């Protein structure tokens, strides 16, 4: 973990609702792994007294950070210019891990943050497996353009449940961005499609806001799978079988 001022290389729109920040993360020394995040300080003044979580849509030294424009801080972040710097802490959180021998991974984003779904799809492909991406919302359609053409991506399918059931049958592994209140339904869908939910088959990213991002304050603790979990440090990626 390091705290550095990373140089912004470029910033651009992805559709009307998202911005993509390209940042030189070389100073962090340790490249982010797919699914990890940064705690960023968009402004040096003290009006925003806590950092904000930002997820990678692509790792590496020139990292891509994708974020929606829902909140004021995100719009302030979007106003930064190339050559300015961004104060970041990270990389943080438990990353996605591809199981040995896996050939095909279903990547599904049911909610924000969409960024880690994109990062994980590219990570899967980089490791020699194939990824199929499903983005649940129509307004996320422009985000599909951030993926290489070799990754299949469908947006807002007409019958998402049917597509999910079908995909769960052929996938060797799944990654899903899903709010905590949808985990039980997701587990049921997996069980229905594959007869049972085996440990390691599905990893889920549970969205949450983080105060410290490092597990110190307990501000993001949730009871998941009858255990107390600090989402920022114990997750945000969990094995679905362990949290339902």
């Amino acid at each position, binding site marked *: 973990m390091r705290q550095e001022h990373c140089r912004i290389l470029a910033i651009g729109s992805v559709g009307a609702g998202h911005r993509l920040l390209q940042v030189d993360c070389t100073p962090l020394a340790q490249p982010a792994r797919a699914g990890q995040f940064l705690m960023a300080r968009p402004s040096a003044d003290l009006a925003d*007294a806590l950092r904000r979580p930002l997820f990678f849509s692509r790792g590496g030294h020139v990292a891509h950070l994708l974020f929606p424009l829902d909140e004021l801080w995100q719009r302030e972040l979007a106003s930064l210019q190339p050559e300015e710097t961004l*104060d970041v802490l990270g990389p943080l959180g438990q990353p996605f891990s591809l199981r040995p021998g896996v050939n095909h991974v279903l990547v599904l984003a049911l909610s924000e943050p969409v960024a880690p779904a994109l990062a994980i799809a590219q990570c899967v492909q980089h490791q020699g497996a194939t990824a199929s991406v499903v983005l649940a919302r129509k307004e996320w359609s422009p985000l599909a353009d951030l993926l290489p053409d070799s990754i299949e991506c469908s947006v807002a399918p007409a019958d998402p449940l049917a597509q999910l059931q079908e995909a769960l049958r052929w996938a060797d592994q799944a990654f899903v961005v899903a*709010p*905590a*209140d949808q985990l039980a339904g997701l587990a049921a869908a997996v069980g229905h499609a594959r007869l049972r939910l085996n440990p390691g088959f599905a990893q889920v990213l549970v969205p949450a806001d983080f*105060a*410290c991002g490092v597990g*110190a304050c*307990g501000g993001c603790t949730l009871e998941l799978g009858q255990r107390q979990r600090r989402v920022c440090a114990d997750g945000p990626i969990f094995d679905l079988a362990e949290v339902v």
Partner: protein
Amino acid sequence: MAEWRPITIAGEGNREFALRSPMMPAAGFLGYGRAYPGLLDPRLFGALVTQATTLHPRGARSAPVGAGLPRSHFARTRGGFILPVPAPNPGIGGMLRLFAPSWRRWQVPVIVALWLADAEEATSAASRLEEEESVSGVELQVPPEAGATWLKAVANAFRQRSDLPLLVKLPLAEAAQLADAAVASGAAALVLGTPHYGAQPLTGLYGPLYGPATLPYTLRALQELGLGGQLSRPPLGSRGLPLIASGGIYTAEDADLCLQSGAQAVQLDGIIPLDPTGAAEIARRYAPLTSTASG
């Protein structure tokens, strides 16, 4: 940099520990010490103050039903944040099992911040902590609604079972009213203190409102207690019981100001998650050593 000499925090028995630096993390901001590996070494501080810990494990609520993010245990405000206490924590037993092995290696005094319901819990907590050699002291968190009767009962119950130095963290809003009760209860130091409580009705959160705007309240409490102020009893601070400033200290200048205003030590709170490197720089100005803690 303010002039500072090492001090000793002494309980009423033979137990005491030395502060080799006036800098500490405030309860809840460095977890149990391992939160910022490579960035914020606990041994930069004169002592490690743990997260506020309950006698038994304290959990979070289950994931709520409904759309959107789960409700967090904190709330962002303009210029600050509400971080309710106690946060979910493993309880005293879980804390000792998970973290005491590291504490024994770190060679830094560990002050366990305690959130207790009543005197009975204080007795049990004292018995558990007495058994752990790496614990140097205890910081009793006094809720704003607790009052002097609660404070005396809990502090006395703790002290009957343990002679660990008992620091008492007072709510800034009631510090002047509760200081006498803390002193009468054998406090080894007063921590000034827990920020004023705020509420965010939409999320149901209620707790201390942290942020740089707290500093004047901390200085006011130091002024009232450290210099005698309007109180009838002898002053505390530089001429008596140690005072530890906590609340809204975000810069080295803030820390110096507190030390010059009668505090013998200071605790850093919101600056730690906002700027851990900056917090380390503040601590390093007075740091006793710089070797790296691990494990």
